């Protein structure tokens, strides 16, 4: 579960020098000191929910009405959302009433158990590639990190000895194809692409054909970012899905919604719309290395039953981890 690093950590003194080192494709970012690594490589933050809860609740003192209000606020501050928060708090209180104690630690444990139960109920943390080939479609709004996630997942699968290709069905955004090509080079996997402006459905078709003819284990299909309220673009996505479905029954096996952990409650609308149009099977929660907690994904798992399957936890190529509900909840409630 702990993230394996391929490169030794550069020390902070070398970080500044990183600017001067030319590399073939891009400049490596200055390295960050990794502190307090939890499961999935998540870094604990002193401003986190856990420390907020600890300061609100103390350790042994019994919880009062006022503290429950603050508990609500702490969950809302983590982007869990008002509705899910009220729900979680109510459930936790019931647990405590049923004999779960009443101290600050008891409250924390009851809340953590509630969150965990909901993540598990949605099937979070389970991702099976399945028999070859697996067509994996990546969808989401603009700027959540679809292309980067594809690069990281390809790297991960290749390291597991899988035969992988990428497909550039984002034919719209300027330089999206180039971006995917660079990832292909870095990971060492082929990229299926047409020219910019080509029909993304045609690229998806090529992707399935290549999966069959080349005997690939998986093809990771990138799509253009689209806001979920754009009817036409969502219809285009549904069409991409249909093209894949028609070409080979049972595909795409996975449709992964890439969700930015910094996103607020709009994440629910995203999950709802992309599930409806593209049949989302799981969520990749990206940018968890920032200060955001990604609580909206908890709300998505709870209210829509869509599991979280991967987490993006850094800039490095290996900074994509299978989502671990236990580690996530521990991190969310870490003091």
């Amino acid at each position, binding site marked *: 579960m702990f993230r394996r690093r391929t490169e030794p950590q550069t020390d902070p003194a070398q970080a500044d020098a990183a600017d001067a080192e030319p590399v073939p494709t891009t400049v490596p970012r200055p390295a960050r000191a990794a502190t307090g690594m939890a499961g999935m490589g998540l870094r604990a933050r002193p401003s986190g929910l856990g420390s907020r809860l600890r300061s609100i609740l103390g350790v042994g003192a019994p919880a009062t009405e006022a503290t429950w209000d603050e508990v609500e606020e702490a969950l809302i501050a983590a982007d869990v959302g008002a509705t899910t928060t009220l729900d979680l708090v109510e459930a936790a209180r019931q647990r405590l009433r049923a004999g779960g104690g009443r101290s600050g630690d008891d409250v924390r444990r009851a809340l953590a158990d509630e969150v965990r139960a909901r993540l598990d109920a949605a099937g979070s943390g389970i991702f099976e590639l399945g028999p070859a080939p697996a067509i994996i479609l990546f969808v989401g709004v603009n700027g959540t990190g679809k292309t980067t996630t594809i690069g990281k997942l390809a790297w991960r699968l290749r390291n597991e000895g899988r035969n992988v290709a990428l497909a550039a069905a984002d034919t719209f955004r*300027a330089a999206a194809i180039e971006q995917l090509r660079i990832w292909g080079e870095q990971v060492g996997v082929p990229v299926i692409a047409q020219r910019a402006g080509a029909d993304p459905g045609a690229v998806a078709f090529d992707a399935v054909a290549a999966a069959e003819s080349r005997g690939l284990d998986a093809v990771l299909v990138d799509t253009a970012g689209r806001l979920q309220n754009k009817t036409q673009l969502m219809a285009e996505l549904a069409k991409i899905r249909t093209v894949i479905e028609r070409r080979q029954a049972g595909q795409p096996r996975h449709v992964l919604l890439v969700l930015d952990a910094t996103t607020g409650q709009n994440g629910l609308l995203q999950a709802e719309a992309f599930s409806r149009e593209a049949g989302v099977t799981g969520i990749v929660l990206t*940018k968890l290395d920032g200060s955001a907690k990604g609580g909206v994904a908890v709300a998505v798992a709870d209210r829509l039953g869509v599991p979280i399957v991967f987490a993006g936890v850094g800039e490095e190529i290996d900074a994509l981890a299978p989502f671990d509900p236990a580690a996530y909840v521990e991190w969310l409630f870490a003091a």
Partner: protein
Amino acid sequence: MFESLSARLQAVTERLRGKARITEADLDVALREIRLALLEADVNFKVVKDFVTRVRARALGLEVLSGLNAGHQVVKVVHDELVATLGGERHQLQLGTKPAVVMLVGLQGSGKTTTAAKLAVRLRKEGRKPLLVAADVYRPAAVDQIVQLGDQIGVEVHSRPVGTPALEVARSGLEVARSKGADVMILDTAGRLHVDEAMMDELVRISGAVTPSDTLLVVDAMTGQEAVNVAEAFHARLPLSALVLTKMDGDARGGAALGIRSVTGLPVAFIGTGERTDGLEPFHPDRLAQRILGMGDVLSLVERVQETVDTEEAERVAQRMMEQRFTLEDFRSQLTQIKKMGPIGQVLQMIPGAGQMAGAAQQAVDDGQLKRIEAIIDSMTPSERRRPELIKASRRRRIALGSGTQPSDVNRLLKQFTEMQKMMKSLSSGRFPGMPGGGMRGIFGR
């Protein structure tokens, strides 16, 4: 998935109906809904707390305007407070120096590169000569992206070979801007996490080297509770001058901006809408306020009611509706008031749940139905208007002749009016006391 504030307040509205004054207990119920709505719009929870306290102070003891209900009036208070928080003077870019330097900073994926291109288009439209500088040296193909965008919009892009440090790109960009006589250099930087010290240091060094006249923080409208922390962190290290709120063509409420504005005092300079390079608009506080509230917009309706409706008259009609003494004369007076409020479809669109009716009503206006209805009523005698049951065959012929319609038109209006009266009876009292309520459907809906 989310109820708009106006929908949330529906229940509160029921409770407040008919009250002349908003009491503390009423307000508590309303404020709870407001708090939830703001949180669902991603307004920072600390900001929500302060905000609700201010609204409470303003709304308490407020007198309820006739023609409105108390719930709507509370919404109006919230709206005004939102505008006051978001508003102030519009931020103008500092373009006095030549070249002016506009530096764009923000988290990954917030839309800096797209914004850079849009800003270039906008400045060129104003007759300036922009230069785009591609200092995002980290994201694969980010430089390609801005070069391609530059090609599309016909704006020159300064970039350096892959591997050049960002600081060097920015410095050389400034030299190029000077030598080529550009008015403004738009500096695109790599997205970064505000908690990434090394990357933040890099920005500080770049900022020190090119001394931007404006440093714009690019914020995704979908950002959640962390928006405030992000903005504070960037603001602490860099001389930020304003925000650009992107992806506003989505359906996010954009409450993040309210939080950032409250905590940092930074104004919103522009909003980004769409992927086309012309999608950058000046910011309007009132529009964002309405959006945060998610109302389709009762507020403008409230304002129009305040401006145009003769409140005494509205009260009189409402009273008659409740007493079930609503006549064609009252109906005629309602039509006059509605017409004063502007295009009827537009008015109806502002009423939650009336959207579908709006089309039919607008159609009725467009093909002159409303005029015809007025003409028919005008051709009646006062006693006929008060007692439509007097109207038999010969009176019907006379009215039709006088209004230039057919007796069947007169008949239809009378029939629909009777239905409307019945409907009013079944409604406990007018849902929109100043308006003919659901009865409009009976007149226009077929």
